[in-house]
């Protein structure tokens, strides 16, 4: 019914080769082909940020990216961050500051927050809010998420 394509890329630091339908999104590939379900489907059209991943250091909505476009790139998902000691402080900040309720938006938030911290280690609250603008949360009202990211800036201020 559809055309398969072989692609190879780095996933959380491990080389990966998979065959994917040309119509498949990176999100579906991660969840259904590779089996990493930390990246969430929230809307499928790049509005909610629940599927945020990092591609060559930039954050991307995986639902808007074709799986085949991952070919040759460096992909990091929440599972990669969860295994990365550099991200421990950020995840712990989410826990400590009460930034997690239902938790469905959390993986995308953490990936986006890691990106904010890496690109702007001195980000203030306003900058963090702008940086999280593309990630929707229905539970927390964002305040504790912003607090968590701010506290993780410069290893806490």
């Amino acid at each position, binding site marked *: *019914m559809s055309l398969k394509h072989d692609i190879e890329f780095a996933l959380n630091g491990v080389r990966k080769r998979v065959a994917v339908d040309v119509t498949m999104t990176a999100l579906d590939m991660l*969840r259904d082909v590779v089996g990493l*379900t*930390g*990246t*969430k*489907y*929230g*809307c*499928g*059209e790049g*509005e*909610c940020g*629940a599927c945020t991943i990092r591609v060559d250091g930039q954050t991307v909505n995986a639902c808007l990216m074709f799986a085949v476009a991952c070919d040759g790139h460096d992909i990091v*998902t*929440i*599972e990669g*961050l*969860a295994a990365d000691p550099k991200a421990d402080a950020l*995840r712990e900040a*989410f*826990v*400590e*500051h*009460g*930034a*997690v*309720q*239902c*938790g*469905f*938006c*959390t*993986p995308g938030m*953490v990936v986006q927050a890691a990106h904010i911290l890496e690109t702007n280690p001195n980000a203030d609250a*306003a900058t*963090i*809010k*702008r940086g*999280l*603008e*593309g*990630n*929707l*949360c*229905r*539970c*927390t*009202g*964002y*305040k*504790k*998420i*912003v607090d968590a990211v701010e506290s993780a800036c410069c290893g806490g201020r």
Partner: protein
Amino acid sequence: MNAAEKPVIVADSLIGQRIQKKDAPEKAAGKTRYIQDMVVPGMLHAKILRSARVHARILSIDTSAAKALPGVHVVITAADVPDQQPIGVARDHLPLKGERVRSLRDEIAAVAADSEEIAEAALRLIRVEYEDLPIVAGPEDAIKPGAPLIHPAPLDAEGRPKTLPPKTPVAFAGKADNVAMRFDYTHGDLAAAEAESDVVVEDTFQLHYVTHCCMGVSGVIAEFDASGNLLMYSNTQVPFLHKREFAEYLDIDPARVRIIQPPIGGGFGSKLDIYPFEVICIFLARAAKRPVKMVFTREEEFLASPTRQPVLLTLRSGCRKDGTLTFRQVHTLHDNGAYTSWGATTPFVMMQTFSSLYRVPACDYHTTVVYTNNPYAGSFRGYGNLQATFAIEQHMDMLAEKIGMDPLDFRLKNAQDAGEVTGQGMTFKSCGFKECLTTAAERSDYRRKHADNIANRNARGPVKRGIGIASMLHVGGGAKIYPSDGCGTILKLDDFANVTLITGASEIGQGSETVLSQLVCEELGLPISAVTVVNNDTAITPWDVGVHASRTTFIAGNSAIGAARMAKAKILAAAARKHDCDEASLDLRGGFVVKADSGEAVVELARLMRSLHFSDKAELVMTTFYYEPPSVHQDKGFKGDVSAAYAWATQVVEVEVDTDTGIVKMTKVTGTHDVGRVLNRLGLEGQIEGGVVMGQGYALTENLIVENGVTRNPNFRDYKLVTAPEIPEMDISFVESMDGEGPRGAKGVGEAPSICIAAAAANAIYNATGVRIFGLPFTPEAVYRALRGVTSKPHWQAWKPE
């Protein structure tokens, strides 16, 4: 350890601390497996074909091409499930529609296939012929004489009404008019109260459609075992009610239905009813003899999950010159949509606010709930109270202005006190309302800012500042709607003094696991880490009515405390026996049995547990407790003390209104909540901040646009949730009224924070501009038009059926 070395155990109380959420580390690492992530071996994937028409007769359905598609296992329509029964509050809703569709969400056929893609392809092959019917596009159209009927009585072959046995559900018997439900409540002498009023105001308010927007879309997995027992993985908020409903539905013993609740991507009341997709998934699993998983798309979530109840509401309020409220008269028209879900029953909560938020000698309340071809409304955090409070709190400001009284003083004069029994029979055993009012007003500098803003209305510049106040009353000790409002707990301690807390209460992200653990640990003198919570399987957990009505901390909390106290009594009795002392002199602290007065360690708890277990009279500490709150069912006149405690809050909203653009910016929210007592401060703040921002969305940005039965914006691009840069500064404070019945004095808070925001925002916009807006939401366009006087004020002639 000899007697001389026994340490003194010092342990701080956990109450009021900032306790980290137990499930947060897993969630922050992306390891939590939600229903969307679950794979059951052998499962099929299901999709539903929904109506392409708003209101139509179905002439034919042809599924032959879909059935022939490779990878398709089962295609079902209403004709394939002749045993289907109506669901919903009024039993007016058949999951699969065979003869008529009444809204765009209506389910016509469903497919189970090897993959979602194949299921979707199969849907495209199903041919449905329709014959359009006239559309009832709004509640006012529904009650017009000669309006098309949404549920007409079925006719026999000769075109005569079919003769049906009495009590035949609406789904089969139809309805002679479009009135789904009526609610009428009254207390006091309305005519006399109106006669003694110096000032009377009357306005119509219009409340719009919004929807829950849980970040995790709806999903369910159903499977039958070889003996025909049903297992469901479900995100329901009412597992034990569902278990019974599905058993009735399938005509099997409830023992044969098991519901497992995987972690949930948001609830907010959206999962309180039984929905067609759940029943359809069961049908598919039964037919396919395989597990079947069904997950919505986001668009489907917008189109086919319930909304908040839209309301057209006319309120008459009166007071005397001295600021004493005299009466309230309310007529509302509720757009039910095509089927009846919990939205229709929001009057239960709305009338409480009208009758009892302030002392009001006479209250006359009427709601008519009518069928239309619109989406149907369900339960949603606040349950009608946002709508009622929006009207009441605007009228409080308007009356105060008319009699020349400060709006805060006017409220304080009429606010409830502890000890009050209201016209509706609610008894306020604890009530921090006045303290909420004064605290929120002081912390926000309400009086000064309110006066300054009025003085500055005509100052230069397009941006005007406003401040508005609103308060709320909501159930805070459960709500006795069902035969029981209780919750059961099973508690056991292992050989290492670790606790397994098996509770009926569902975790929906709100933090119930954490607060219940905290309450147990406070009794048993253990760290939170000692507790494992089991709360997601009806085959294991004791009964609970469900997670709704802000009840879990109160009801499940009291239940957990009950079980923990029984365990403690057992432990102390055993320790007293073994160590030859009086059990009344002992306590549990820091993992030890200690002398209560000195804190001196008597024995390590884990050691005591092992010595009980590994002895001739082997004994384990396991207890059960069922807590039923001392509340009562309302009588037929809606009177009765329905909750064991009531929660109060005042929220002050500050805005900046750009009069050139109509853009309203919410700059600050000062909220003071009577929570009884702060248990987990971190979780409590999180609930309130989240609720405030949900209220902000209701007030300013969210609007599910339904035109002629068609939802125009079923996506996050056009349905605007508040994003991080838009949130207000939040100053949250607590009044601890120490409720006598509450767990450690606490009351429910889950729904409270979203309730006042729109009402306070309306008052703030008026304070800024002198223009009062009676309809929601306050989008730039709506505000711009209102500021220029080109908005037609909502109007509706109060109506009761003959």
